[in-house]
């Protein structure tokens, strides 16, 4: 009999702790329950020790008890207590925490009536079981736990625990080291520039600036000249040779532009009008002799122009 209250009680505890579980899972009749429902606080408080109120009530009943009134009182009580266990037992299964609320209330009634009602065998045994359970539970809850950060250790073998802890710490350390190494390897080569621009960078910027300046000067020369005086010189040679010639003065090493298109002056400006549009320089004079190869610098990057749209 002690098992029955023990089993629903932990379930009730779990259910009470779970905020998502609905309290009256479909079967509860709120009206019936509300009569004896105490708040959850009362139930939890009851686990630690009986409340002062309850004690007072017990005392009051003990005071009021008069064995001369046996005829009336027990009749009232059993009748009242009888309907209570059936509904309680009926709902014991689905309603975990209601059971807990019922238990103290039925305990109240049962404890007062238990002694004298011999006919209520079930109630008596239940009451004893309840009392025993209450005593045991209270004893457990009163026990002070050691303030161990690991929590309560069920097996008191300290050595085992220490070994396990050491192993865990080791694992943790090696994992941490591995992670650090991995991160270092990932950053390999990543060099964050310092604030000040040092000499090397300044030199690089200078080189780049010279390249840009040269290009811009070329462009401005070409573009201002274009309208005025089309030069008779081959423009291609201008592009190729004048640039290298100015390098010697700079002494910096050659700078080359992105591919410079120089075309003959006699060719139209718009690309599709040219003879070499999409054909490349090779097929320019396809009907003429092969020796005259005024190779235009406009090479087609891919030879397979057949897939051009």
């Amino acid at each position: 009999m002690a098992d029955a209250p023990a089993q629903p009680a932990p379930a009730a505890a779990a259910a009470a702790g779970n905020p998502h579980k609905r309290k009256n899972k479909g079967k509860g009749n709120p009206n019936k329950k509300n009569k004896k429902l105490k708040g959850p606080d009362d139930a939890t408080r009851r686990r630690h020790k009986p409340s002062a109120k309850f004690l007072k009530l017990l005392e009051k009943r003990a005071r009021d008890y008069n064995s001369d009134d046996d005829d009336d009182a027990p009749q009232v009580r059993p009748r009242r207590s009888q309907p209570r266990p059936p509904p309680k037992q009926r709902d014991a299964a689905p309603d975990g925490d209601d059971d807990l609320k019922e238990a103290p209330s039925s305990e109240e009634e049962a404890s007062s009536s238990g002694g004298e009602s011999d006919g209520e065998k079930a109630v008596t045994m239940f009451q004893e079981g309840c009392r025993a359970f209450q005593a045991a539970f209270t004893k457990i809850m009163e026990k002070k736990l050691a303030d161990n950060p690991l929590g309560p250790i069920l097996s008191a073998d300290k050595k085992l625990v220490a070994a396990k802890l050491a192993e865990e710490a080791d694992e943790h350390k090696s994992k941490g080291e591995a992670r650090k190494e991995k991160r270092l390897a990932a950053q390999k080569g990543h060099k964050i520039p310092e604030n000040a621009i040092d000499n090397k960078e300044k030199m690089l910027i200078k080189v780049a600036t010279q390249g840009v300046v040269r290009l811009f000067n070329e462009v401005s020369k070409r573009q201002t000249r274009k309208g005025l005086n089309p030069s008779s010189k081959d423009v291609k040679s201008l592009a190729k040779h004048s640039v290298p010639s100015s390098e010697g003065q700079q002494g910096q090493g050659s700078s080359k532009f992105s591919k410079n298109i120089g075309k003959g002056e006699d060719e139209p400006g718009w690309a599709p009008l040219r003879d070499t549009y999409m054909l490349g320089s090779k097929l320019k004079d396809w009907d003429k002799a092969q020796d005259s190869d005024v190779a235009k610098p406009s090479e087609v990057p891919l030879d397979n122009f057949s897939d051009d749209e």
Partner: protein
Amino acid sequence: GKGNGKGPGKRKMPLSVARKQQAVLANVDQVTGERIPKSFVFSRGKLPSTLRHLQQDLRKLMLPYTALKLKEKKRNNLKDFVNVASPLGVTHFLILSNPKSLPHLRFAKSPQGPTYTCQILEYALAADIANSQKRPRCPAEIFKNSPLVVLSGFNGLGEPFKSFVTFFRHLVPAIDTDTVKLSTCQRILLLQYDKETEAIDFRHYSIKLQPVGVSRKIRKLMQNNQVPDLRDLKDVSDYVTKAGYGSESEPDDEAATVSLASDIDKLNRASRKSAVRLQEIGPRMTMRLVKVESGLCSGDILYPQSVGKDVKEGQEEEEIEDAEDMMELEDGTEEDDSGDEE
């Protein structure tokens, strides 16, 4: 591209924008008649997060002719990219990888072009560079045009660097000096070869033109379009002629001055002198060329891994290593064989 928005219910788009969109999608440059080189920047293998940022920076660098939001999956292999590339007109691949925790960048031409593998010795992200500058400058419109490419220090190097230079020149659309508008040249990519360390410095700058001979105050006035504070001054001439502080970054030698052909913007007008000022944006890398293959990440190896051997085809050379021997390079300089092999 999108239509001109004349139909009912279509969003109205100005003609210039529609034309620009079409220009980017086009395969052939309208003016020069050549194919526009487009590129894919992607990675092979797992990359740590900083290398992913580097990949994104490189994509921004290759704008506008690249897929900025290219999505790659683990199971894509190179063949998938090649297959997708040809209908879209993509001609170049930039492949980031991280074998043995050493970042490598491969430049390749699709579909059967040569592949240049460079090991990245050091790199810095665009965000790092912006953090290190006092006034970082990276307006979004400078990515609307391709960068200019400047290669320096590659003189007289012979193979494989000669083809490397040609490769890079083809990586960006060609510039027609007769018709190019200077306002479209807003970025510059610099590759400089350092002979002692044999490293290639890779830098990305933004170009800013500043009129020369204009005092700082007047320049700011024109830029800000705000009325200056003349409370303490008696006359406007005080404001204009007051000697201000010299700018701390006065690099303007004669070397940096250009004379413009046309109006660039409000400040830089035609046939006036302007100074070219560069500011670094974008990733910064130091790389070393370690391998050249004749195919797309396959084929004959044209340039062996370790430096200082006779440059010949074949892989037998890689096995031979002798620290004491002096070996001759192709261009005649002699060098100690201190090659480092991976």
